[in-house]
């Protein structure tokens, strides 16, 4: 009896391997079944995706994705690229950039611009999306709001060329003393602080967009937080904004030039920072454009998609902390690091995406010089990695600093996967070539700026994008008075050259001064030029008329249209 009981159940330890295999097999089977079931259900009920397609012929609509949710749509407080891109579609300033980056009249029909003052004549057929006319008061109000210290706008400095702009922003002058004044509803007069040859180009920047005062005040501080908490004067207006989910722009019938707007709507149906997710959306025909990275280029090639490159105009560099208590304030140490850096290696072996250009200067290749491109006329310093000379510099630096071995340095960088890879490259490279230990400090953007401002770093991975189309947008970055010169670099010769370029209106004099600036930055190893950022992306070529830019709204869909479907 007991015997039968005993044998009816196999002992616990019998053929354990077989037991495990069987279990694993069933588990795997179950997983596969579950996957298929879920896939089927998603298909059937279309869960997690709106049923839009990238290009909708009937509704004359295209669908796109955003990399992040815009924090808010108030142009006086906007800082990020996504807000800037959206504002470029739903708002219009005094001027706007055309398809070839030429300056076109926007709300201003015409203007007389002298050296120190100008008058802008506004068109009478420009309306807000609630039907009220766009007036000169709207511009003055918006600019004053941005400069008001209470707004704490990070981009207020863009308005500094206007008379008393800076004084108002730092609380030393009253709003009434502002250099921009509405003479009447349709005439705007602007006085400048000092000659600013590039002032017209600045006017397309988002901080220069108008805001309707009456509407702004009726929202009691909520202006720009929702689609219905704004009014629009651009080619499109925002009809839906579900936070963290989607944004919908529709053609603005009140826009004075709406005959040139050919799309009925633009749907930003997805918000995702992950390039692989975006590429999957592109692959399934959900969005029109998706960025590529070094990892998924191959997929785009095998799928046979059209790949395009684009330079976003920004320049990336390693910034040093020039504060006295930091080892990086030592010139020879900076020179040593500069001499082992190789921008070509970085671009070809680490970044691995076409479009990026190895950095040779603070001025990117697309900037205009006297007649042609600035960098064709002034090629910038010659740099080649030289480990031997770097080690000499390092020895000198150690003697000066009174150290026996190379100091350990804090490398401040972003929190993305790319930043980590980039920082690790420098960590190993500097350790191997110079014996310098690098501690990587990954921080979110805001925290990184705070640490840069307080000086808690030695080296920082930084970049600068152009705010307007002139050499000075890069040239004045390292002047002693620039708030963005967070490493506190100070060089009187450089300051003087920038002043020359700011005040002169002779292109040759200005460009010569800027040439000095790029050489000073190199000789002083104030920063290390890394690369000019470019990107590769895939694009649905049924959509035409899209402009990609380095300065201003990018990508610009205001003149985009869908090509008629042709049978092929």
């Amino acid at each position, binding site marked *: 009896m007991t015997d039968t009981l005993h044998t009816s159940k196999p002992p*616990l*330890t019998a053929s*354990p*391997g077989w037991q*495990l295999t069987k279990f694993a097999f069933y588990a795997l089977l179950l997983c596969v079944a579950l996957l298929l079931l879920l896939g089927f259900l998603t298909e059937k009920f279309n869960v997690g995706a709106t049923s839009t397609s990238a290009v909708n012929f009937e509704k004359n609509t295209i669908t796109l994705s955003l990399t992040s949710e815009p924090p808010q749509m108030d142009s006086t407080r906007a800082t990020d690229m996504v807000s800037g891109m959206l504002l470029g579609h739903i708002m219009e300033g005094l001027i706007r950039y055309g398809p070839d980056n030429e300056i076109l009249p926007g709300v201003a029909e015409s203007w007389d611009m002298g050296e120190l003052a100008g008058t802008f004549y506004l068109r009478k057929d420009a309306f807000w999306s609630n039907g009220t006319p766009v007036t000169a008061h709207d511009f003055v109000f918006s600019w004053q709001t941005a400069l008001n210290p209470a707004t704490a706008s990070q981009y207020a400095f863009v308005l500094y060329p206007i008379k008393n702009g800076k004084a108002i922003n730092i609380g030393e002058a009253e709003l009434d003393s502002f250099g921009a004044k509405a003479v009447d509803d349709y005439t705007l007069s602007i006085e400048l602080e000092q000659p600013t040859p590039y002032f017209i180009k600045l006017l397309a920047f988002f901080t220069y967009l108008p805001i309707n005062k009456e509407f702004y005040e009726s929202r009691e501080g909520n202006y720009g937080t929702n689609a219905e908490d704004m009014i629009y004067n651009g080619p499109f207006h925002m009809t839906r904004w579900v936070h963290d989910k989607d944004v919908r722009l529709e053609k603005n019938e009140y826009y004075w030039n709406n005959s040139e707007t050919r799309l009925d709507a633009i749907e930003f149906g997805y918000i995702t920072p992950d390039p692989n997710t975006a590429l999957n959306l592109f692959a399934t025909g959900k969005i029109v454009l998706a960025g590529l990275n*070094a*990892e*998924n*280029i*191959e*997929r785009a*090639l*095998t799928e*046979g*998609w*059209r*790949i*395009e*490159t684009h330079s976003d105009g920004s320049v990336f560099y390693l910034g040093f902390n020039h504060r006295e208590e930091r080892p990086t304030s030592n010139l020879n140490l900076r020179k040593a690091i500069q001499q082992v850096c190789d921008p*070509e*290696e970085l*671009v*070809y*072996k*680490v970044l*691995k*995406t*076409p479009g990026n250009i190895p950095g040779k200067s603070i001025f990117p290749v697309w900037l205009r010089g006297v007649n042609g491109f600035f960098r064709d006329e002034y090629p910038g310093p010659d740099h080649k990695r030289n480990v031997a000379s770097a080690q000499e510099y390092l020895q000198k630096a150690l003697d000066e600093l009174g150290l026996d071995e190379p100091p350990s340095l*804090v*490398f*401040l960088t972003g*929190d993305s*996967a790319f930043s*980590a*890879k980039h*920082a*690790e*490259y420098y*960590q*190993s*490279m500097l*350790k*191997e070539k110079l014996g310098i230990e*690098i*501690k*990587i*400090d*990954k921080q979110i953007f805001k925290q990184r700026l705070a640490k840069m401002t307080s000086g*808690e*770093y030695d080296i920082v991975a930084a970049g600068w994008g152009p705010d307007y189309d002139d050499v000075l947008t890069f040239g004045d970055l390292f002047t002693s008075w620039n708030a963005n010169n967070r490493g506190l670099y100070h060089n009187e010769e450089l300051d003087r050259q920038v002043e020359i370029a700011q005040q002169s209106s002779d292109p040759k004099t200005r460009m010569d001064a800027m040439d000095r600036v790029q050489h000073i930055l190199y000789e002083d190893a104030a920063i290390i030029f890394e690369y000019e950022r470019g990107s*590769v992306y895939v694009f649905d070529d049924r959509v035409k008329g899209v402009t990609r830019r380095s300065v201003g709204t990018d990508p610009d869909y205001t003149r985009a249209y869908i090509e008629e479907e042709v049978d092929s």
Partner: protein
Amino acid sequence: MTELSFRPVETAQDVEKTSRPSLSYWQDAWLRLVANKRAMTSLFVIIFLILFAYLGPLVWRADHTEQHLDKTSQAPWVNRNAILIAEEAEWEDVVVADPTGTHQAPMSVEVIGEARTTSVGLKWDAVPNAAGYRIYRHILEPKAGFPLGLPIGETEDRTHVSFQDRMDIQQKTYWYSVAAVDEDGKDFEEFTSVEVRPRLYITVGEALRLGYITDASKVEPGDTVLLDWHPLGTDYLGRDMLARLMKGAQVSLSIGIVAPLLFIIIGILIGSVAGFFGGAVDSALMRFTDFVIALPFLLFMILFMVWFGIEAGGSGIPAMVVALVLLSWPGVARLVRGEVLQIREHGYVEASRLLGGSNSWLIGRHMIPNTMGVVLVSFTFAVPATIFTEAFLSFIGMGVVPPTPSWGAMCNDGIRTMEKTPHELLFPALFISITVLAFNLLGDGLRDALDARLRSRE
């Protein structure tokens, strides 16, 4: 009564015979463990992993931080035969006279010199009316009417008819296409392609420096040398995966063993004291235990990191160990308390107490040794859990800091390139899985072996 009346009783022989050697509890457990194939395999796997982590680096001497940027994300099976060449020549642009004719695309595109994995030089004949050229690279043969591939470069003048590609070139077949560009930057309809298969080359100087050859006079250009082998491939910065896995194993195993040891000691102390004294002490300690169990681990981990004031670029490992130790002991404490509650009612404990055994003697001599079985089992289960926690925290970037590798951090790096170079994710993931499985199966086997109720009676 004579002496004979009293005769010692003969000692009974063979009345009771030990047919098998007497076995202590531990000996018996060991025998049962050895009989369990699953557990024994796991034990050998664990021993192998320990040897891999600590003796491995002595055998495989590659440096886990050294970058080889010429072979990033290289698969294990890639061809390693490099052809020796003399020093590399400086790249010079080819400029030709302004062309005449009517052709729309270059007549031919050719490779300048050898196609190398470090650079591929191309030149073509000029196209009239072109404003410049755009050069594409594809991994499939381009067809008319289809995209030409990756736009790898542009030239801005029709007389500049050469281009050097240095962008991440692998040892595989590429098709380079050159299309002329008009004033507006649009490609002409026609294009010319060339098929290129870049090969691995190494300059004599480089080979000398890296020790592949010892005497430059004994070799001549064209000879092949075998480059370093990376048995598990390299990662995205060309670092040896095997060396990184070994270093990562050290991190994972040391945390996986140290942290559980520490929290088990705390658990034993608290559990045995609570169980032994009972009453108010017991309920106070057990309420405290309940409180600690309720604390969320991840949140406290972050709090500890802040509290430790981890400096920029500092490692999160000490904070992780402290958080693990301070938050993970309650399980063990409860287990030990339960055991002690049973044991203290046993007769031998009572006897020991009557003979004058002090409390600490009773706990140290009778309670703790008798709970060792359950403790050991919970230890073997705690190790994989801790290894997994470490991997998870490093995966989300809260653990080790670069350049120290950890399996979790390596997975995080590898997941980005999963589609293109799966080996970067596969190997660390495999190591985590195998380690966790081995420890769990061993724990399973130990529990069976140590369970007194299952002791063999045959």
